[in-house]
């Protein structure tokens, strides 16, 4: 791998992490509220999904972890970081397994990611507060993960199609 490509990649990763951070910040500003713990739009996942298809799973993982840690340090707290990190990691793990091996479109992968993001957060919440009864929220979190995944997926495909030819290493 030549130096030029390496530098290009570093630059792209930096830009992607910044965009993801902006998405995280904007999401907190939006007055959209669902009243249930763990339910949110997950706009920063647009960056994760696109990075997965453009750069592969290793770099998508790197961008994802950087984004979660930085946005937790900047905007929220250590506790919500554990919570976010578990959702993001599980979601990315599932997406990486299937993104180039199944017939699902980017939207489908994103829906899968959305569902498992919420499931991961729910599992960690159950562990932290030591109450299995929290799984009462399972169904509604799965559904909202599906719907937000759908929206994120459609936006991701739209952006990816337009950026694909330019963001090449």
């Amino acid at each position: 791998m030549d130096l030029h490509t390496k530098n290009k990649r570093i630059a792209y990763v930096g830009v992607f992490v910044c965009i993801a951070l902006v998405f995280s910040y904007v999401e907190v500003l939006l007055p959209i509220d669902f009243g249930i713990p763990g339910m949110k739009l997950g706009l920063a996942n647009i960056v994760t999904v696109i990075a997965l298809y453009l750069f592969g799973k290793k770099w998508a993982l790197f961008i994802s972890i950087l984004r979660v840690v930085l946005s937790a340090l900047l905007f929220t707290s250590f506790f919500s970081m554990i919570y976010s990190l578990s959702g993001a990691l599980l979601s990315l793990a599932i997406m990486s397994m299937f993104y180039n091996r199944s017939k699902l479109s980017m939207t489908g992968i994103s829906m899968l990611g959305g569902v498992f993001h919420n499931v991961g957060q729910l599992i960690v919440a159950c562990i932290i507060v030591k109450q299995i009864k929290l799984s009462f929220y399972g169904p509604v979190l799965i559904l909202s993960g599906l719907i937000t995944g759908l929206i994120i997926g459609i936006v991701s495909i739209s952006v990816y199609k337009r950026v694909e030819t330019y963001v090449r290493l």
Partner: protein
Amino acid sequence: MINKYDFILASATIFVALVWFIFNIFNTDKGNVCQIYINNSLYDTVVLQSSDGIENIIIDGEVILKYEVKNGHVDVIESECRDKLCVRQHAISRDGESIVCLPQKIVFMISSDKENEFDGFTY
């Protein structure tokens, strides 16, 4: 943008969610007790039918959270945490429902102590 395999995935997921939801509905009931845990240890137990009113949770002399009990529901109305997610969560009343404040590690959990009820006793 969307193909038929996405639809299959979505339908299967909705089905799983529905089944789980129905399972939950049949397995739970309106709870009659709300247990409040701080840092995973039981802080207080509130009997829902007979404790209407607004209560404060006080740690080290400071009010860190306010909650209200009304009509068998528990709702968090004020909190000292940064993101106030707990305040935004809706009022809970069913067995198994909960309100969680992660930064302050406060958990409101509805449960029912059906096992403790007895119809009568004789000597």
